[in-house]
């Protein structure tokens, strides 16, 4: 289909920059080598909740080789935060989690940094620590943020404290519908904190230029967000801060929320550079990363559903208690998304869900790949199987029965357009052999679905500069992390300009030169930068046609561009090389620069008028459970996805596999473990169990077609949705194998065996 209409789109060209990554060329932030740079390091709180009585840095400052020691007293009295401004870059008065930055050092070597950090004397007055969000909400709990008021929209009878934000979802008359339901199923689900654990360590490097400006290098997914907060916290204008994005070795949302993600490593580094009068580079080690940076929050989810005997869902009520961690971070947004998704993506006319995002003395919530979605889907899709079991209906049939149709509304989407949910379920069932595969002893089969946001969010721009040799240089605001900038973006430019993909170069983000962007988040690279780039390339092409028209003695409308030649349609002999036109532009407009924008308001208006076609997915698997050890082995795994028009099939499959692997890890083994004082027990890769390839099944991906999205050519974002269904798919398969429903993650050998033994009793 794609190949007939397009020359480049729909093919799986080699990823630009792939070879450098595989061969280990020095391309990442950590490889940065600034002249005269010194190293920086951060002193982190050893208490999860305490008052800071005093900080004495005199011994550290006296140490030979130390260039600067900074505390909150050295920085302007300015706080930061995404939704609630509740945090200093270096803790002032109080620390709220073990990992909170308290002071920082710049010194000639990493060894001296380490020694100096040890010589900083901080006197703490420990305060009671709260780790469980439900405990924190109680009146008896200590107050974590004295200066933060409760959210204005809290229900009047809520009687809670330490709530960072509240989301209420309401539709129809759930109380009445629940009372009239034939069957009501009520359950409680819980997921634990995981860390996104990108392999590349987080870095920041800062240099104050002779004119006073600050240049910052960061492996951040949102360089403009970093610039905003660094400028605010150091009280300098935005144009005095330049953020250069280094190559990113994985982020998964863990580097996506401005300076919140790295607990202010960037402004701390900048402050050190200013005080030290030397460039400073900070590299976090893995354990420091795990205890201090943003995570995927744990969520406790109360879910209740009323159904008719025939399997029609009539009502859903529930409550989400979402762990924000020590500061607001991305908690309000992720918790709101989790609350909405607990309403499900099936036709459910009556809904009421309360979502509380709550402060605790733990790491801060970030926008980790599909923030809030995987947690909600674990509850919703496990719950769907529980309802089906109670009704005696096949889980696949039960899901198909409740698929919405065009024009319907679901929670978060007022009007649906094309709905791929049913087709993904049918294909997944067929591929896994639902009802046909003969299962062996201790084996079980499970299915789960998912959805994700299709659009919504800030807009963004693109610039396509056509050089005099006909090659193109592209500026967008999204960074590359295995996503669109080196797959879809160059392909779109090549398609629209009629030049080879390798003649397109997408520049990494430089906030001085690149168009503003909210960050590489929310599966939005192809929607925002893809849309903007397409329009920018078309704009550039129009300028080229206008310049070429007189030379070819034809109307610009009669021209086409192919293989770097501008030709008169129908008269291929009449042509001029793109390079000639681009060079001639020097004497006319200087340079062909195409501009394009993704206009979010326009996109929203389109959706309001014609409806929204969110991506849907269904995953299914077969597992084998060892009844002696509780070990779960995945024998077969299929993932069926609708991502609209597929620009680069292999890139999409890569995103699906990576996302599924991430949630399989959360399902089977991953978890940040705490002791009662709030200390992370498994900060390093020795103890924090990421799955290895040996635990991974082959993920068989199928992409369905025919459900165009809001992105360029009908594409939809594909980076996050693969994280949504796996946990429930595996839990459902375990339940099918053993008859035991496990409602708390991870489905680790110990938790599974414990559940099996409890069920026997």
């Amino acid at each position, binding site marked *: 289909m794609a190949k007939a209409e397009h020359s480049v789109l729909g093919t799986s060209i080699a990823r630009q920059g792939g070879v450098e990554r595989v061969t280990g060329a020095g391309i990442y932030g950590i490889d940065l080598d600034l002249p005269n740079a010194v190293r920086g390091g951060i002193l982190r709180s050893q208490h999860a909740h305490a008052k800071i009585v005093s900080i004495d840095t005199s011994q550290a400052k006296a140490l030979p080789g130390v260039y600067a020691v900074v505390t909150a007293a050295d920085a302007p009295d300015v706080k930061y935060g995404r939704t609630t401004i509740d945090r200093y870059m270096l803790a002032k008065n109080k620390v709220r989690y073990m990992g909170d930055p308290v002071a920082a050092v710049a010194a000639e070597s990493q060894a001296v940094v380490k020694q100096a950090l040890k010589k900083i004397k901080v006197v703490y007055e420990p305060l009671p620590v709260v780790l469980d969000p439900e405990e924190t909400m109680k009146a008896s709990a200590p107050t974590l943020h004295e200066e933060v008021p409760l959210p204005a929209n809290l229900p009047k009878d809520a009687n809670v404290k330490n709530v960072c934000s509240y989301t209420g979802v309401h539709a129809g008359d759930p109380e009445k519908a629940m009372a009239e339901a034939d069957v009501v199923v009520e359950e409680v689900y819980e997921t634990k904190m995981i860390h996104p654990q990108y392999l590349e360590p987080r870095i920041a490097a800062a240099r104050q230029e002779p004119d006073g400006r600050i240049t910052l290098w960061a492996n951040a997914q949102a360089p403009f967000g970093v610039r905003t907060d660094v400028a605010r916290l150091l009280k300098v204008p935005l144009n005095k801060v330049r953020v250069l994005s280094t190559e990113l070795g994985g982020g998964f949302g863990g580097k996506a929320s401005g300076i919140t993600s790295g607990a202010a490593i960037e402004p701390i580094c900048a402050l050190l550079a200013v005080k030290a009068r030397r460039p400073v580079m900070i590299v976090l*080690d893995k*354990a420091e990363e795990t205890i201090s940076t943003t995570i995927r929050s744990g969520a406790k989810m109360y879910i209740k559903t009323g159904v008719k005997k025939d399997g029609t869902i009539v009502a859903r009520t529930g409550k989400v208690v979402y762990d924000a961690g020590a500061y607001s971070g991305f908690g309000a947004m992720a918790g709101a998304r989790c609350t909405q998704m607990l309403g499900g993506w099936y036709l459910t006319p009556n809904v009421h869900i309360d979502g509380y995002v709550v402060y605790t003395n733990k790491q801060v919530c970030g926008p980790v790949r599909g923030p809030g979605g995987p947690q909600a889907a674990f509850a919703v899709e496990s719950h769907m199987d529980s309802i089906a079991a109670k009704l005696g209906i096949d889980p696949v049939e039960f899901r198909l029965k409740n698929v919405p149709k065009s024009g319907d509304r679901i929670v978060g989407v007022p009007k649906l357009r094309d709905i791929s949910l049913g087709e993904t379920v049918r294909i997944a069932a067929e591929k896994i052999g639902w009802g046909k595969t003969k299962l062996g002893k201790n084996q079980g089969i499970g299915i789960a679905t998912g959805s994700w946001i299709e659009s919504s969010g800030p807009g963004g721009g693109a610039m396509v500069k056509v050089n005099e040799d006909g090659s193109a240089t592209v500026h967008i605001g999204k960074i590359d992390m295995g996503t669109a900038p080196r797959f879809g973006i160059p392909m779109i430019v090549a398609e629209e300009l009629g030049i080879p993909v390798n003649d397109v170069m997408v520049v990494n983000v430089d906030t001085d030169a690149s168009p503003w962007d909210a960050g590489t988040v929310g599966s939005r690279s192809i929607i925002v930068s893809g849309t903007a780039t397409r329009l920018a390339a078309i704009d550039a092409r129009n300028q080229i046609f206008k310049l070429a028209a007189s030379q070819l003695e034809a109307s610009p409308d009669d021209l086409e561009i192919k293989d770097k030649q501008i030709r008169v349609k129908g008269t291929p002999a009449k042509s001029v090389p793109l390079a000639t036109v681009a060079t001639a532009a020097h004497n006319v407009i200087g340079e062909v620069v195409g501009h394009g924008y993704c206009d979010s308001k326009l996109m929203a208006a389109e959706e309001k008028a014609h409806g929204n076609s969110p991506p849907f997915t269904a995953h299914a698997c077969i597992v084998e459970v060892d009844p*002696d*050890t509780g*070990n779960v082995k995945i024998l077969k795994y299929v993932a069926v996805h609708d991502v609209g028009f597929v620009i680069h099939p292999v890139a999409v499959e890569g995103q699906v596999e990576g996302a599924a692997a991430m949630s399989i890890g959360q399902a*089977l*083994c991953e978890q940040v*473990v705490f002791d009662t004082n709030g200390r992370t*027990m*498994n900060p*390093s890769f*020795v*103890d924090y*169990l990421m*799955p*290895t390839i*040996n*635990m991974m099944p082959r993920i068989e991906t199928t992409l369905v077609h025919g459900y165009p999205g809001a992105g360029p050519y009908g594409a939809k974002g594909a980076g996050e949705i693969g994280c949504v269904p796996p946990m429930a798919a595996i839990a459902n398969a375990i339940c099918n194998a053993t008859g035991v429903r496990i409602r708390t993650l991870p489905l*680790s*050998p*110990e938790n599974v*065996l*414990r559940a099996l*033994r409890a069920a026997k009793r």
Partner: protein
Amino acid sequence: MDYFKPESVSEALSLLAKYGNEAKIIAGGTDVMVDIKYKEEPGCLVNIKRIPGMSAIEESGGSLRIGPLVTIREIETSKLVRERLPLLWEACHQFASLQIRNTATIGGNICRASPSGETLAPLLVLGAKAKLAFSDGEKTEPFNSLFQGPGKTSLGSKGLLAAIEIPYPPKGSSGVYLKHAVRGPMDIAVVGIAVLVVPDSAAKTLQEARIGLGAVAPTPIRAIKAEAMLRGKPLDSKLVEQAAQMAAAESSPITDQRGSAEYRRWIVEALTRRGLEQTWKAATGKEVA
């Protein structure tokens, strides 16, 4: 931090005598380097990798002598080990990643004395002996008295492991190493169990059963009471069950982020049962009745 590269055992021993607890011996470095990064730096490092004569696998009479600097990978790829000591081979085969196996030494695994050390329960069960070098001479220490606690051996701070002697298991015996870890070889064992059974010539009764337990006590241990229950008895599923329960009772695991004490006992029971069934079948060709 000082760094020394002694070229003989006596040179190494004099460094240890001089620096005592301040000195840290390094060979493969897979544990020591991580400790330096995350824990305290030692006063000095004594790199023993250059000392000659400690890197060979040799047959001597009815036993195998392995130098402490032999890497796990060398053991894993040794034909001699594979043929004569398949139990040790199995433990080395399930030992972390290939990269780590290429670097880590058996001496390091032993001297680290981690309760979960992969080769320790098998060596205990095989009746291995350690040759320990001190400044006043060599001493032979059986493995069941070598380990004194997590990270502690009878070498103390002044001794050097000179060789490991492993007698060949009796004819007709069969051994197995079963490791339970969430991530398999790429993970520290939650429980590691080595089982060696010696049936009588008629394949009717158990002449001897040896059970080694890893990661479930302050040191790797033998499940002596379970072994005694099995000795001289015909093996049936009821006896297997009783011995497995006894082994679990003999363990004294801790609770940590890898698993609770209770769970570890469940696994000791399950793997002991599995180990006895598997080795009995391998040795006799018969299922446990």
